[in-house]
Structure formats: C-alpha cells, structure tokens
C-alpha cells in the first residue's frame, strides 16, 4: 500500500508551486507589456530628438521635442499666453457643446421615431442614407452662406455631423431590436408606454450609446476643420495660425490640446457605457 501512496503526486504542494509560478509569470507579463506600451512612444520621442539634433530633420518644421517642450512651458508661463490659449479652448468647447447638444438630441429623437413609425421611416430613410456618406465638411460653404462666418456656422456643421451619426445608429438600434423582445411585449400584452420606454429603447441603448460616442469624435473633427477655414477663435484656428507663422511649437501645443479633448471624450464615453448599459459587457 505504502508504495502506491509514494507514487501518487502530492497535489497540495504541486498546486502551490504551480500557482506561485503562474502568478509570477502573469505579473511579469503584465509588467513587460506595460513597459513596452510606455517605452515605445519614449523611444519614438528620443529618436526624434536625436534626428533633430543631428539635422536629419528640418528643424523649421520638426524642432526637437525638448525645444517644443521648452517653448510650450515658456508660453504657458506668461499670463497673456495662458489667457490666449484658454480663450481658444473655450471657443471650441462652446461650439462643440451647442452643436453636440442640438445634434444628438435631434438625432436620437428622430432615430427613435423612425424606428417606431413606418411611414416616417419610409419617407426619411432613403434621403438620410443618401446624404450620410457626404463628408460634412463639404457642406461647410453652404453653412457659411446660411449662418455666416463664425460661431453659428461651425456649430451648425457640428450639429449636422452629430445628428447623422446619432440618428442612424439610434434608428438601426430601435429597428433591429431582437425579435424575441417583440414576441415578449406582444405575448404579455404590454401597454405601449411600457413597450417603448422599458423594452425597445433599453434594447436599442447599446446602439444609441455607440452613436453618441461616434458623434463626439465626429464633432471634434468637424469643429477643428471648420475653425481652420473660417473662425477667428478656437483651437483649430490656434493650430492653423501657428502653422502660418511657422510657430511650430505652438502648433504642437494645439495638437496636444485636441488629443486631450479626444481623451476626455473617450473617458466620458466609457463612463456613459458603464452607466447606461451595465448589462452589455464586452
């Protein structure tokens, strides 16, 4: 009997060793991946720095990162510099805020109505899908004709882009609600109010949130593009002006601000997803 027992492995001890080893491997792996993820952009910046210092890049257009950093901090250390940048940021945020607010509200509303009401859908859907692929910036001249130069026309362009993105996503979300939910509301004789507010709209919520997120990205693209063309203020104007006077470090500062906007938008989107569709885990 005893030799059988000695032949049998000692599961507890083995498990412990295995678990320790696996946990260590996992930890090492995640540290490695973190180092790689952080390291890669640092390597890129270093390469840029070296290339600029050895005149492999044209310093007028690509000054070294350290030069850019130095001029940015010099710019931001002056009161007038900070006020100037804040003014541009405020102008852009206002345009996005107005355009996104109107566009998303209208888009979600019309999307739901189209999903709910056959005749509206039949009337509007073909036109909507026909216009959708048009790059919105291409309609900007029209917007200027209608709304004039400045805030109103840029907000209108943002409104339009956000509207299409949210409307089409909301519509397809509501329209293609899983048929099982239709069967449930019909078989249990749900009243119309309950059908829409507690079944179909929540069922479409993942698509609605996707539309709202894509709309926010679209808003950022459009506002910067519009400001390039026709505004006295805004972060797009700041980038363009800096470029025109070949103040490249300031241009990069503008780009950094746009990246920060995008980062904030993504964070807000993630938060909205967790709040609005907690059941939809990917």
């Amino acid at each position, binding site marked *: 009997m005893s030799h059988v027992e000695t032949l049998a492995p000692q599961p507890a001890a083995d498990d412990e060793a295995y678990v320790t080893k696996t946990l260590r491997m996992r930890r090492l792996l995640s540290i490695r991946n973190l180092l790689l993820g952080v390291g890669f952009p640092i390597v890129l910046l270093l390469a840029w720095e070296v290339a600029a210092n050895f005149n492999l890049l044209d310093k007028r257009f690509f000054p070294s990162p350290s030069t850019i950093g130095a001029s940015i901090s010099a710019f931001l250390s002056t009161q007038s510099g900070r006020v100037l940048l804040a003014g541009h940021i405020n102008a852009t945020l206002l345009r996005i805020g107005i355009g996104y607010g109107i566009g998303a509200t209208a888009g979600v509303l019309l999307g739901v109505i189209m999903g709910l009401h056959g005749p509206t859908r039949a009337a509007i859907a073909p036109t909507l899908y026909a216009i959708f692929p048009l790059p919105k910036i291409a309609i900007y001249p029209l917007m200027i004709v209608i709304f004039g130069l400045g805030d109103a026309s840029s907000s209108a362009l943002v409104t339009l882009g956000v509207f299409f993105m949210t409307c089409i996503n909301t519509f397809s979300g509501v329209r293609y609600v899983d048929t*099982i*939910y239709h*069967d*449930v509301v*019909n*078989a*249990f*004789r*749900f*009243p119309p109010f*309950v059908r829409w507010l*507690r*079944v179909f709209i*929540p*069922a479409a*919520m993942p698509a609605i949130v996707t539309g709202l997120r894509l709309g926010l990205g679209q808003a950022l693209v459009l506002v910067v593009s519009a400001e390039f063309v026709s505004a006295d203020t805004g972060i797009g104007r700041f980038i363009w002006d800096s470029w025109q006077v070949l103040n490249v470090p300031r241009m990069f500062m503008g780009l950094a601000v746009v990246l920060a906007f995008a980062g904030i938008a993504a964070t807000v989107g993630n938060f909205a997803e967790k709040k609005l*569709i*907690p*059941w*939809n*885990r990917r």
Partner: protein
Amino acid sequence: MSPSLRMSHLRKSYLTKEGAVVRAISDLSFELNAGERLAILGPSGCGKTSCLRILAGLDEHYSGVIHWATNLSQDASRLRSATVFQGDSTLPWMSVEQNIAIGMSGLTLDAASKRKRVEKYLDLVGLRDFARVFPHELSGGMRQRVAIARALATEPLLLLMDEPLAALDAQTRLVMQTELHRIWAQTRSTVVYVTHDVDEALSLSDRLLVMTARPGREKAMMGASFDRVMEPLERRSLPIFAQMQAKIWGLVAEEVGQKLTRETAP
C-alpha cells in the same frame, strides 16, 4: 369537466418572401380541460410552433375558431395566455424581480398585489435570493426559471411553452423537468407544451398530440398513461414509458420519413 379551451379546424398559411403560399397547419382541432397538460409533438416544420404562436396571440392571421372558456374581460388581473419561449427572453436591463413584475404591466393590479405575486413566484421557481440580480449574472437554466416565473405571475388561463428547455444542457434539462412538474402541480396550470423531445413530452404531460409533417394536422392523440402526479424520473422508471416512447417514436419517424421522401423525390 367543461373544456377550458376548444380549438376547431385551425388552418394557417404563410406567404413567403417570394410570394409562395405555404400551408403550415391544415386542420387541427382539440379540446383542453382546465388543469390539463397537453404536449404537442411532431417533426420540425409541422406547425406546432405556429399553433402555439396563434394561441399566444402573436399571430392573428388564421382560420378556424378558438373558444376560450372564461370571459377574461371580467378578470383583468389575469392574462388569457402567457408564453415561455425557447430562447432566452429575459430583459437584460432589468433585475430578476423587475423581469417578473413587468410581465404583469398589461394587467390591472395594484402595486401591493403585484409585489405579492412577484414574491410568490420567485419562491416557486427558487430564485428568492436572486431577486435583485441581473440576468447576465445567472446561468441559462436560472434565466429560464425567470421566464417561467414571469409567465406564471400573470396567472394565465393557459400557460404556453415553446420548447422551453431545448436550449439547456441535458442535466439541467432533467432537473428543470422535475421542477416544471412540481410547479405545475402547485399552480394547477393548464399547459400547452410544444417539444420535439419524446421523453420530455412523456415525462411531463397528461396527453400527447402527435402532428403530421407539414401541413400539420392530428396524427394521433393519446393519454400519457401515467398517474398525473407521478414525477418525471418515476415515470421514466416504468416499463410503460419505454413502450410509449417506442410507439411515439414510430409515429414521428413515419412523418419524418414521409417528409424526407417528399423532399428528395424528383
């Protein structure tokens, strides 16, 4: 006992997208007594699900007469029929208790009675401890219990089940059969149970309706030959179970065979 439901000469045709007419049910009649549990069996495509959808009120385009015994306009606290679907039909954005409560949203019930029913049927399906949990945190079998509780909470005149256990694994299915049997005994439900699983039909029903291949009509109607209080596992242990099983398989196989011959014929 007077029949709780009488269906006479039900016919049902579909128009396909290509414009062809497909007759799903050619002539189907049966009666169902209050508290009776009827299983409908048949080859796939025989119209058993069509029949169930008509009874569920999900399909109003049919000919024939369906006579319901109770005048439900007098009782707005119950549904005429409630359905448990084959796939997962819980609403993922609602907790278990909300899922059960919303099933009653079409009924005239005060909040207190609704609350009472939710608790009662949560207990009955054994999900009391999961009242505030969301469906994605539950197993497939537990989600199906939620769907069953939602249907039972409407205290329907007729409980309809469309292969409710088909999506579950074999072990869970066996456990759930016993559970269903117990639940029906407690609620005294009148049930129409569609399945293609002969064992399941025999384990759960009082009567079995075997349908022909499309267009579906009655091939055979027979009693399950068990004491109705007898549990599924006990039924399976009796010699008569195997005999019934063989007999029904024979009937179904004939239909499947015919369908195959017809489909492969030049």
